[in-house]
């Protein structure tokens, strides 16, 4: 369990992190992916910050890349959002408005927590598993593993998103669709366990 900072997203190796925990990566997506991803995508209903739009776009690319194909119904799928700083652009915007005595828009209400974009993804793609948000990449993989191993979900969509922490940084997001590795002894021993 490490407090993975924003740099952890610079070169994430989701396959290794997943394999260490007995998980397999079914699909992956990210933003930016290429030079074509110059301007952050727009996500209707979300305003003033790239956090949710980037998370949604990386997740869309991941789910569309899954073997079942775009639009296919998924089994019970958890959504885990991991971010070290959260929606820092949105938080700074609210702080400036509060300190300046400005009016706040009503959309900022639900954007204040990372659950909002998880709910957007869940509603759009029919993901009925748990929604959990954590503060680091490693924690995200560990929580996904718990939800899968304990049978709360069959698949877990893990979305990693970080906005530029300071000048010169870049906003980025990555998403992986995770499942338990088959025949993993750690997971099999839990079948039917009771205290």
């Amino acid at each position, binding site marked *: 369990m490490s*407090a993975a900072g924003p740099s952890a997203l610079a070169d994430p190796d989701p396959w290794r992190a997943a394999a260490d925990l007995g998980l397999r990566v079914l699909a992956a997506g990210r933003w930016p992916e290429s030079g074509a991803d110059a301007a952050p995508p727009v996500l209707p209903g979300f305003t003033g910050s790239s956090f949710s739009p980037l998370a949604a776009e990386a997740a869309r690319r991941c789910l569309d890349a899954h073997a079942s194909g775009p639009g296919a119904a998924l089994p019970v799928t958890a959504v885990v959002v991991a971010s070290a700083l959260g929606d820092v652009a949105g938080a700074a915007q609210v*702080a400036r408005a509060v300190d300046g*005595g400005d009016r706040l828009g009503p959309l900022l209400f639900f954007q204040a927590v990372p659950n909002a974009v998880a*709910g957007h993804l869940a509603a759009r793609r029919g993901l009925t598993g*748990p*929604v959990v948000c954590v503060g680091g990449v490693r924690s995200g993989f560990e929580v996904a593993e718990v939800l899968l191993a304990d049978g709360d979900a069959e698949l877990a969509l893990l979305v990693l998103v970080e906005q530029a922490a300071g000048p010169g940084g870049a906003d980025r997001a990555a998403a992986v669709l995770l499942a338990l590795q088959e025949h993993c002894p750690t997971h099999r021993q839990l079948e039917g366990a009771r205290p």
Partner: protein
Amino acid sequence: MTDTVLTARRGPRSVVVGGMGVLSAFGRGVEPLLGAALAGRAGFGPVGRFEVAGRRVDRAALHPGEPSLERELDRVVDEACGAAGLSAARRAGCPLYLAVHGDPALARAAPVRRAEHAVEAFAAGVARRAGLAGGGRAYTSGCTASADAVADAASAVARGRAERVVVAAGYLVEADQFAVFDAGGALARDGRVRPFSAGRTGLLLGDGVAAVVLESADAARARGAEPLAVLAGWGRAGDAHHVCRPRPDGAGLARAVGAALLRGGVGPERVGYVNAHGAGSVLGDRAEAAALLRALGPVAERVPVSSSKSVHGQALEAGALLELVVTVAALRAGRLPVNAGLLGPDPECPLHLVRAPDPVGPPTGPVAPGSPGGFALSLSTAFGGANTALLVGVP
């Protein structure tokens, strides 16, 4: 959508609550909080901690003064570890799962300094000062964040991956979240939280900082400690419905309750009390009532239900843990927290609400919560359609 996660499973070890620490609008410690909850004495008053001129609502449930989140987290973790009788050596091997909105300093930090305010660095600071194991995991899923921390800690203990975990959470009412909740029209215009009541107008924020020690029953027994409660089950499920509105039929929350009961090996008839999420919002309370009817069947019409938010307010990321503390304390007292603020019945919330303080005497209810075999549920929901259920029983 089925109502039960039939695949929900858990490790074989029994999980217990070894110690608790808390701060609320009623002061420090469990007793003042429990006293207010059992009496139905709401703690809402005018906000003097920051500027509320220009806001539609000016009330919250506040601890006096300007408490510091770091200091109060340190204090409750120490209180919980002390109550559990953990030595420094045992603390040193114990991880911390912390639920917070974020490092309070982040939003106003200079851009070049923001990276220093990562939420898991904040959690690691709490762990270091408390003498807990290094690292520190942070949960940020809004009003279900601390229930997520409890569920993951319980899973780790049940599976034998950890002997014990300290779960802590904190929210102290501050200007930014107050402003966005006010702008969203979520705050109760009449200055009271009235869960499941006719005429309810919304939620109010409240201070909450809490910590619990979750450990294996064997570990507690081995050092001669007497656990406060058994964490018998936990469950989580999503609505897949909307960015911030609850699913009207309550199916997601019902699946979370079903998973908690399944993990606990407990049928609905053994649930003697439900501490509902009950924020006091029109849509949320209605959906929660639907979820309880769906998950508990006929039992839902007679099991005592209240939302302790009606006295201590909504503590956001810390809410689920604050309410778990209330639920465990009530279970041990064998008395039921009151659903304060009721104006009249809402036909769309046909629940058996706890309307008045229990007379001091033998415990009441279909299964008296303090009696052997009595269990209580503590429920939470959050934006994004997140739903959690925690099931506790007496040891």
